[in-house]
């Protein structure tokens, strides 16, 4: 089937807002339906509306890779696949796309670049580091969204082939260690950068408190998180400060 370049472009643009109506009933479903709709417009009259309705059913995955499911489902509709097969395809893609996207982006590309940016700021790069982060991150972001939509449209119901792409496997293998190294490298530099204006006792208090909070977060990760600990400690510091007057 000839690629529908205009329709693919419109679908890609809509994919940037795929989580716009995020909800607990259909999760990304409505956004997926909106993104898929331009790819369904040249279906025959009797097929178009049922396909649009199917596109808006429950769906959940990593937002950057949702295009893979959008392209694959639209292609399967064009290929005349039975409705229940298309529903099964969408259901089958939720887990793998979510897991792959989380490892690739949330636990790889994003913290890798964030760690490098923190380190660069701590070493004096200033706002240039932040501008670099935005540019480099979004080159990967847009490329991943475009690849996903194209791969979904190309492979249709055989989209699992795309998920085993050597490029993806190599990226996963590289991003894990790179992210771990970058964030590890950034942490001591961030500590130094943030504690520079503190006197010696303030630096010591920060180091000891950081150690204790880290242990608490590791010990009770089911109940505690960074926000709760930070708010709790701030409240204690405020009370101590007010008594200190």
């Amino acid at each position, binding site marked *: 089937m000839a690629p529908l370049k205009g329709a693919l472009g419109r679908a890609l643009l809509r994919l940037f807002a795929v989580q716009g*109506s995020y909800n607990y009933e259909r999760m990304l479903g*409505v956004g997926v339906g909106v993104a898929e709709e331009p790819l369904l417009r040249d279906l025959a009259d009797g097929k178009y*509306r049922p396909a649009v309705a199917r596109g808006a059913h429950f769906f959940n995955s990593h937002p950057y890779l949702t295009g893979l499911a959008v392209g694959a489902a639209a292609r399967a509709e064009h290929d005349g696949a039975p409705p229940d097969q298309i529903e099964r395809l969408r259901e089958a893609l939720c887990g793998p796309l979510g897991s792959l996207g989380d490892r690739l982006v949330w636990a790889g590309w994003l913290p890798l670049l964030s760690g490098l940016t923190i380190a660069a700021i701590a070493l004096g790069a200033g706002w240039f580091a932040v501008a670099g982060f935005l540019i480099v991150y979004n080159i990967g972001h847009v490329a991943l969204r475009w690849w996903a939509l194209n791969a979904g449209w190309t492979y249709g119901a055989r989209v699992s082939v795309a998920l085993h792409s050597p490029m993806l496997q190599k990226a996963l293998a590289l991003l894990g260690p790179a992210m771990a190294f970058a964030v590890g490298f950034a*942490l001591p530099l961030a500590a130094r950068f*943030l504690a520079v204006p503190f006197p010696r006792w303030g630096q010591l208090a920060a180091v000891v408190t950081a150690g204790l909070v880290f242990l608490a977060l590791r010990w009770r990760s089911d109940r505690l998180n960074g926000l709760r600990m930070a708010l709790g400690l701030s409240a204690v510091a405020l009370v101590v400060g007010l008594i200190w007057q």
Partner: protein
Amino acid sequence: MILPIEVLIALLVWGTLVGVDLVSLPQMMIARPLVAGTVAGAILGDIPTGLRLGVVFELLQYDILPVGAVRYPEYGPATVAAVATAHAAPGGEVLGLGLGALVGLVTALVGGVTINGLRRLNSRIVHAAAATLESGDPGALVRVHVGGLLRDGLRAALVTSVGLVLAWLARPLLAGALAVRDGRPALLLAAVVVAAGLAAGAAGTLRLVGTGPNLKWFAAGLGGGLLVAVWLR
């Protein structure tokens, strides 16, 4: 906090864009505290404060893995409010850091609650529109979706407004009390917030790294970072 009206409007617009970017559109990571804080600092003509608070909240952000329907605080508009607070705080960067972080933490909590509330509201609206959606009417589908986007924009504007009001209240309510005794209470506040950020950053990263081979890379990075930090002293 007395800021010119055009600066307040710029902060409100920026906070709203940042809030919408987190989930809805376009997820280009202007919602990351590093970016949100730096641009807020640029709007206020105080980029160093934006960078400093951006790093604090970026570290706290490592604690969050936004998978599935997990609930999390919203640090983007929170960082904007934090930078506005710190910029206007009297008595140096330590007081600004502590006071700004405190305002930011409360705003982040409010932001997280509103995200959950919006998702529940969207669920009710989608449920009510189920029959229309099942008819395959593309116009109805787009209306439901765009409605969600607009509600998220309103939500982000509301959260940023709350943050800016807190920033406005922080100085008269807290700055004086924290500045006594050579600012030691302010220093204590800043130290515990920085500590919480570093701890959350380390704990969050270790959750991602796990106990496999990547742990060695994390240790190697940590060692390298420590060497550079010591060398820079």
